[in-house]
């Protein structure tokens, strides 16, 4: 059986072991790494990612990816969302190849060990979402985008490497449908202020009200579902959330 020959997998759960997939926490988003880039969304073979949902002929696709976890790390959020929204296709995007490998193996293992055919709706792709989001998603395709504990890039000269900026929000607004929601969270106060400020400045996003935040089941997953989030909770740290809705352009 697979788990006997692969030391990187746990024999008991059949799931991959994180310690064999460790990587640096930081990755340089400026470098053009060595991974394939699809020419356009129609060039992506989503049947490879979601074989049970998508036929091999992309023309017949009725279902498209709706949730994207940008910088998905070890996949904690996606795994939680997969069972919460079993009929929604979701994908994680991650720059580090070892970490992407881990998430891939985790999803495959979960699909195998699941009794009810779960986790067929979740997948991961290695890419640089600061450059290639329009290559994967069509205009207005997504209903949710997640940016959990992004790299703070503390030095001012490195602020331009931050995944949330007013310029990049143009592209995120493009792939999000009107009414779609962008979720951001961090444990770094300055970054939290930065992200909130960028979203407030951008003419195509407005903040969710407290009532809306309270009634959204996804919001509490931001802190609890990921490795990063659990670490912050363990250390009793504070988190800073900014959750905004994509609206039509207001001049």
């Amino acid at each position, binding site marked *: 059986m697979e788990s006997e020959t692969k030391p990187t997998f746990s024999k008991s759960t059949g799931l991959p072991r994180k310690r064999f997939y460790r990587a*640096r926490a930081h990755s340089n*988003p*400026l470098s*053009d790494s*060595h991974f394939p880039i699809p*020419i*356009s*969304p129609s060039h992506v073979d989503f049947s490879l990612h979601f074989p049970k949902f998508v036929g091999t002929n992309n023309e017949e696709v009725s279902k498209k990816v709706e949730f994207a976890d940008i910088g998905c790390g070890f996949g904690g959020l996606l795994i939680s969302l997969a069972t919460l929204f079993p009929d929604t296709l979701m994908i994680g995007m991650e720059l580090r190849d070892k970490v992407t490998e881990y998430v891939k193996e985790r999803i495959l293992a979960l699909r195998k060990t699941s009794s009810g055919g779960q986790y067929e709706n979740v997948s991961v792709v290695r890419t640089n979402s*600061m*450059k290639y989001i*329009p*290559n994967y998603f069509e*205009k207005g395709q997504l209903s949710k985008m997640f940016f959990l504990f992004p790299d703070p890039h503390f030095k001012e000269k490195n602020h331009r490497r931050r995944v949330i900026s*007013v*310029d*990049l*929000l*143009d*592209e995120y*607004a*493009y792939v999000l449908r009107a009414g779609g929601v962008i979720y951001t969270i961090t444990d770094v106060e300055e970054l939290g202020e930065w992200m909130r400020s960028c979203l407030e400045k*951008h*003419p*195509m996003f407005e903040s969710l009200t407290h009532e809306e935040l309270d009634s959204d089941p996804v919001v509490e997953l931001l802190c609890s579902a990921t490795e990063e989030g659990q670490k912050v909770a363990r250390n009793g740290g504070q988190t800073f959330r900014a959750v905004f809705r994509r609206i039509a*352009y207001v*001049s």
Partner: protein
Amino acid sequence: MEEPHIEEGHNQNKLLDVAPALISVHPSHKSIAATVGSDLRVFNLIDNSPVTLVDESNESFHKDSVRAIRYSASGKLFVSTGDDKLVKIWSAESWRCLNTICSEKRVTAVAVSHDDSYVCYADKFGVVWVVELGGITKKGVPLLSHYCSIITSLEFSPDGRYILSADRDFKIRVTVFPEEPLQGAHEIQSFCLGHTEFVTCIAFVSNPELTQSYLMSGSGDSTVRLWDIASGSLLDTCEVSTVAGHLESNESEQTQVTVSDLCAIPDSSLAAVAIQSFQGILLLSCDLSAHTLSITKVIQIPGESFIPTSISLSTSTLWMVSGASNGPNQPGYSRVRVISCIDSEKSSVLEDEQIPGGTKLLEKLQGKVSIEESVMIAASEAVRAAMSSLLMKKQYSEEKREFRKRSRNDKKTTN
């Protein structure tokens, strides 16, 4: 292991100094401008005389290679910009420098809005800036950005609703040009995705009534493509490598060529296309109802070596320049040639004495009347190598990548 890598970096830096000669003709054929290196030269085609530029600003005349020039659609203004980080706005009537904008980085592309109110310019880091004309402002504000890419071309759509930006990451972004551009252009209309190499040039082709407009784009992937910008959909792809390749040698296999420049011919649905390494011009015809693009004519340029680095069109006269400079303090070489009646059966490459402005124009724009062929050949090759070095993504071998990471802190300890 150290030596070849350091030398390669040095050679690449020298290549990046190579700047192609540029040419731009007034929309009503009143004047013509050409640049090589930092030298901007203008000739008046109405009274056939060289123009003396007047620049009384603190940063007078360009001090480094000019990388983009153009007349505004109205013909009232002319802009020039480049490696000296200055965007100069000239009156195309008095040829005085009206304003000089200081950019933080080297500028790669420039466009003027149709009503002459705004100038947009793109820097080497992918940021497009906008400045309002008629004021005394010396600095632009950010309009939009292509993250970490180099923007090769900026254009306004014919109806002025959109601003288009093309980059070296194969993309063309179509953004709504807002009522208040100084607040930024945040609403992306579409992305035109389909090219498989850097995009070099974009231009609009329209029907004579100007009711239908489609975008054409040239790229390092040997194609010119046709797009509908409202949806971003690719309408047709025209391969140009076979034409260029076939005429150059007898090989039947396709090699990849770069489309270096293209311009639409007004009052027709034709476009003139210049290709690197090809001594001639292709005429492409666009069928606006069938949404197709095809090669309709190949015009070879007879005589000594002449590969156009930049082309510009007014009425039916196509102006071409070939040349380059090696940096700000090096003399550059440029040769100007003309094709008349380009959209008709009677199109012909003119001899020097037949061109509008004649040898007087050539003396002004070229700096001298004749250039040695060996110099022209060397210049063309240098331009081709420089563009490839700047825009083509570097593919490193595994070994080279590991070598490049050698100075990283966390890689020093061995496992």
